[in-house]
C-alpha cells in the first residue's frame, strides 16, 4: 500500500494528519459545551431540589449503569489497542479489535435498552408511564426528563461512533491503513473516547445517588 499523497492545501502528509487531529479536538471542545449545557441545567435543579433529586435517583438502575460504564471503558481500551496494532503493522488484527470495539458499543446500547424497559415497568418514563411514588413531588419528573434526554443524546452519539468504527474496521481489513498512515483511526479514536467521557459524567450525575 503506497502512502497517499497529501491534499493540495497541505505541504506534507504530517501537516495533514496534525490538521485532522486538531480539527477533531476543536470539534470535541464544542461537544463539551453541548453536553455541558445540559449538565448545567441538571445541577441547577439538583441545587434547587436536593431532596427530591435524591429520591428520584433511588430508582435509577445503579447496577445496569455500572455495567455499562465498565463496558464503555473497556471499549476505549480495545479502541486504542486497535490503533497500537496498526502502528505495529498488524492491520488485520487491528480490524478484529475494531470489531470488538463496535460490539462493546452495541452491548452498551443493548443494556441501555433493557434499562429503559425496566424504567418503563417502574413507571419512571415521563409521558409514557409515569407515576409519582410516595413522598415524591412533580420535580421528580424533571429528573427523569433529564435522564432520558441526556442518555438519549449520548446513545445517538454512540451509534454514530459504532457505524464509523465498523466502516473503519472494513477499511482496515482491506488494507487501507498501514504503520505509515492511520490518521482516520486516530481521529475516530478521539471521538470514541470522548463519548465514553461524556458517559462518565452522565453516570456521576444520574446513578450513584444516596442509597445510604
Amino acid at each position, binding site marked *: 500500500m503506497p502512502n497517499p499523497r497529501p*491534499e*493540495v*492545501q*497541505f*505541504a506534507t502528509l504530517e*501537516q495533514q494528519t*496534525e*490538521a485532522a487531529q*486538531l*480539527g477533531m479536538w*476543536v*470539534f470535541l*471542545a*464544542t*461537544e*463539551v*459545551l*453541548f*453536553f*455541558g*449545557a*445540559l449538565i*448545567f*441545567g441538571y445541577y*441547577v*435543579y439538583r441545587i*434547587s*431540589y436536593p431532596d427530591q433529586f435524591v429520591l428520584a435517583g433511588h430508582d435509577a438502575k445503579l447496577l445496569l449503569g455500572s455495567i455499562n460504564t465498565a463496558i464503555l471503558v473497556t471499549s476505549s481500551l480495545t479502541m486504542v489497542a486497535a490503533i497500537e496494532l496498526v502502528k505495529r503493522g498488524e492491520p488485520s488484527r487491528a480490524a478484529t479489535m475494531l470489531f470488538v470495539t463496535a460490539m462493546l458499543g452495541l452491548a452498551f446500547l443493548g443494556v441501555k435498552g433493557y434499562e429503559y424497559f425496566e424504567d418503563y415497568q417502574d413507571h419512571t418514563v*415521563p*409521558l409514557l408511564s409515569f407515576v409519582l411514588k410516595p413522598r415524591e*413531588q*412533580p*420535580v421528580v*419528573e*424533571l429528573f427523569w*426528563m*433529564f435522564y*432520558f*434526554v441526556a442518555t438519549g*443524546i449520548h446513545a445517538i452519539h454512540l451509534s454514530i461512533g459504532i457505524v464509523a468504527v465498523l466502516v473503519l474496521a472494513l477499511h482496515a481489513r482491506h488494507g487501507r491503513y498501514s504503520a505509515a498512515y492511520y490518521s482516520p483511526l486516530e481521529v475516530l479514536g478521539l471521538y470514541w473516547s470522548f463519548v465514553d467521557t461524556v458517559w462518565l459524567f452522565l453516570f456521576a450525575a444520574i446513578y450513584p445517588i444516596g442509597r445510604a
Partner: protein
Amino acid sequence: MSAVTAGPSETYLTNESSIASWFLTKDHKRIALLFFASVTAFFFIGGAAATLIRLNLINPAGNLLGADLYNRMFTMHGIVMVWFFLIPSIPTTLGNFLIPLMIGARDLAFPRLNLGSWYVFNISGILALYFIIAGGDDTGWTFYTPYSTLFSNSHVIAAAVAVFVNGFSTIMTALNFVVTIHRLRAPGMTWFRLPLFVWAIYATSLVMLLATPVLAMTLLLIALEHGFGIGIFDPNLGGDPLLFQHMFWFYSHPAVYIMILPAMGVASELIPCFARRPVFGYRGMTYALVAIAVVGFFVWGHHMFTSGMSVFAGIVFSFMSFIVAVPSAIKVFNWTATLHRGSISFDAPMLYALGFVGLFTIGGLTGLMLATLPIDIHVTDTYFVIAHFHYVMVGGTVSAFFGGLHYWWPKITGRLYPEMWARGAAILTFIGFNITFFPQFILGYLGMPRRYYSYAPDLQTWNVLSSAGASILAIAYLMPLFYLGWSLLWGPRANANPWRATGLEWRTSSPPPEHNFERTPVVTTPPYQYNPEDDSYVAQDGAANA
C-alpha cells in the same frame, strides 16, 4: 499603477464552467460566492419583513398587519437577520474568500467540510423558509419559554430546528478557520504578522465554536418541550424559565460579538489602507479582539436585569458589562488615532469604514447606558434597546460588510465598481440609518415597548420619522445590487492591487487562480507598512510599491 505581473489567464472563475464545477467545488473562493448568494437572499427576505414592520408602525393602530401577522413578522425578521444574515455574513463570504489568501495558503484545511457547511446552511435556510411559508413563528427570535413551549400555536419546532441545523454550519465553518489559521500559515507569517482581519475571524471562530453548542442544546430542549412535552423548563413541574434565559443568553450575547468582531476586522483593514499609514497600536488591537471574545462570555446576564435574577448576580453582570466595553473603546480610539498624520482619501470603502466607526461608537456608548442597572430597568425591552443593537449590528456590521465588499470587489470579480455611485450609496446609508434608528432611542426612553404592533398616538411623530428613514435606508441597500451587478458585466478590469494595499491577497492576480498563488509566498514584513509621507508601501512579502 501596479507592477504585479498579470497572473495566469485561468482564474478561479473561469478554470471550469460546468454547473457541477460550482455546486461540487472545493475551492474556498467559489464557496465564498455560493455563500454570498445565499446570505444576500436572506438579507432581502429579512429586509422585506423589516419593511412591513416599519410600514405597520406608521399608524398607531397598527392595522396594516394586525397583531398575529405583526408578531410573525418581527420574529421572522429577527431569526432571518440574526442567524441567516448577520452571523454568517462576513465570515462565510469575505472570511472564506480571504483567510487562505491573507495567510498565504492554497485553500482552507478542510475544503469538503467547507462545501458541506454551505449545504447545511441551505438546508437550514429551507427549513426557515418552510416555517415562514407554513404560517410563521410568533415567539420572537428569543424563543422565551413558557410562551414558546406551552402556549404558542405557531411553527416553533420548525423555527427552532432551522436554527439548530444552522448552528452546524456555523460550527463547521468556524472549525475550518481555526485549524487553517493554526496549521496553514505561509512561511514567515507569524501570529503578530497576521492582518487584523485574520485575528478578528479567529476570535469570532472561537466564540462561534464555544457558544453555538449551548444554543443548540437550548433549542433542542425547546423543540422537545413544544413537540413532546418534555418540560425541562416547565414551571408547573418546578422548572425554571430563567434557566432557559441563562442558557439562551450564554449563546446569544456572545453572538453579538460574532456579528461585530469580523466587522472590526474589516474596518482595521480599510482604515490603514485609505489613511496610508500603519494601524495605530497593532498589538493592542489584537489583544482587544481576544479580550472581547473572552470577556464577552461573562456578560450575558445583562439581558436579565428585570427578569427576577438575583440582585447580586445583576450587579456582577453589570460590572462585567462595563469591563467588556473597555477593549471596544480602545479599538475606537485606535482607529481614530490611525487617521492622525495619514494621507486620507475618501473612496467608498473608507466612507463605509468611517460610518462604521461613528455608528459603532454611538451603539457602544448607549450600550454603557444599558449596562447601568437603573437605566436598564427603565429602557430594557423598549425601543431604546432596539436602537442600540441596530446601531451596533446594522450601523456597525452591515456598514463594514458593505465597505469590505467594495474594497475586495476588484479582487473577487476582477472588475472595478463605479466609484461615484458607491460613494453616494455609502453616504445615503449613513443618513438613512440615523433617521431610522435615532428616533427609536427617544421612543424607548418615552417608554414604547418593543414588539408592539400598536402604540399610543402621541408617539406617532417619532415612528413616522423612523419609517421615513427606513425608506431611505432601503434605497441605499438596494443601490449596490444594481451598480455592482453592472460592474460584473461592464466594469473596467482591475489590476492585481488597485488599492496599493499590503496584504498577501493583493500579491496574486485579480481574480486569483484556483490555488491562490503561483508560488507559496514568504512573509517578511508586518502588515500595514504604508508611508503617508512619500505614499510608498511595503507588501507583506517584502515587495516595495509593487
